[in-house]
């Protein structure tokens, strides 16, 4: 066997040196045919692969659409409406259309604010109340949030837009009841000449019905006499 192989290669070698140019042609043709085979195989694998990918991708989309058709049409419709309304109006316009869903009211000792300065007597407890009143609309919840002071940021609430201080900032008591979210700031033991300062950010004052001075500067000073 080994001897036969050895003879074959020896013959081949002598034949190769004898017909070098012919062998170059033969090898070129073989390589060309091999390349043609490899390219054909590659192209066909790519075509079939991409067709399989398209089927898979469309199948995934179909499963998604079927799931949506089987789900609650209001939830699915709301998802679509959020996207559509943002495209139709843009975020700023949407905020203007939905700010009617959110009403903000501030009271000091249960009374509406009519001036940027409020006078109280000593030993009286000062209570500043800020109410965020939600009114339901036909807009999806996510769209209604555009009109809220906090926008779509669920990590913050309206307390980030108001501060009540008497030396240091007062921590409010927060209460959510039905559609009303209330922040109550209480300051006790006030002496004559003390001041409690309420500051509100423009985002909040813009959505409130306030006297001009308060709306412009966002500041209410409570003076103890």
């Amino acid at each position, binding site marked *: 066997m080994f001897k036969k192989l050895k003879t074959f290669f020896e013959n081949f070698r002598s034949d190769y040196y004898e017909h070098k140019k012919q062998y170059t042609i033969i090898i070129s043709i073989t390589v060309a045919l091999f390349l043609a085979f490899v390219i054909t195989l590659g192209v066909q694998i790519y075509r079939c692969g991409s067709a399989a990918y398209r089927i898979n991708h469309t199948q995934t989309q*179909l499963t998604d659409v079927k799931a949506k058709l089987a789900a609650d049409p209001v939830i699915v419709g709301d998802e679509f409406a959020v996207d559509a309304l943002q495209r139709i109006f843009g975020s700023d316009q949407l905020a203007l259309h939905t700010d009617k869903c959110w009403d903000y009211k501030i009271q000091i000792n249960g009374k509406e604010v009519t001036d940027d300065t409020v006078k109280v007597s000593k030993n009286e407890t000062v209570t500043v109340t800020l109410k965020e009143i939600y009114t339901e609309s036909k807009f999806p919840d996510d769209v209604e949030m555009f009109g809220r002071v906090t926008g779509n940021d669920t990590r913050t609430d309206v307390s980030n837009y108001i501060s009540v201080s008497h030396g240091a900032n007062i921590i409010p008591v927060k209460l959510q009841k039905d559609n009303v979210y209330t922040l109550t700031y209480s300051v006790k033991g006030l002496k004559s000449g003390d001041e409690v300062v309420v500051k509100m950010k423009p985002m909040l004052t813009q959505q409130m019905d306030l006297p001009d001075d308060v709306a412009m500067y966002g500041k209410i000073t409570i003076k103890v006499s």
Partner: protein
Amino acid sequence: MKNIGESEYNTRDILFFIRTRKLFISVCAVLVGLTVAVAIIFNVVYGNLMEDYKSVYAEYSEKSDILHKQNLKHLSGILNGEFTKDQLTNISKGFCKYSLSVNNQPVSKLDFFYSADSTVTVTVNHTIDSKLAYYLPDDVVKLALTDDVSKYFKFVTVNDSKPTISTSATADGYRTDIVFKELKVGESITILANHEIATKLNMNQGTLEIVYNKEAK
């Protein structure tokens, strides 16, 4: 016949050489056979895959349309619940595209137009932005498209003749044709567009003078 191995060759020499080397022939035949087999087999596989793709895509298309109609109906409920008809018309009009032509020739940016015909047809095409059309319910789109656009124009003619106005649906929207008939040579029509529509129509000054001139081309 020349022997193989000599310095000059011809085709017959090479063919003779190939015939005498069976291994080479076999390798070439196998390669050709494999190439053809691969091409045929994969073509069959590809054909089957495309059939599958077409059927999956057809089903996806059908279900998507149903879902989209359902979503648009829901959106229509929201819009109609939150906005008045006038507000919706204005919203929808914001996405309308208008184009102006006289006797089927575009005339935006023109101040004068010479008509060779005694009948002058002023056409306003109104279509909705195709990207937004997908997100607007049909009833809302229709509010803008069927809006009477002739009210945004004033037409001044020498003999105060009244045009015939008609609105009809086109493939991608609506068109309003304002037709003036039997003009006399030299007679003119002045179109005055209001600012809003003039801007959308790209009109220079919001005016266009149409003159009937037999020799106009």
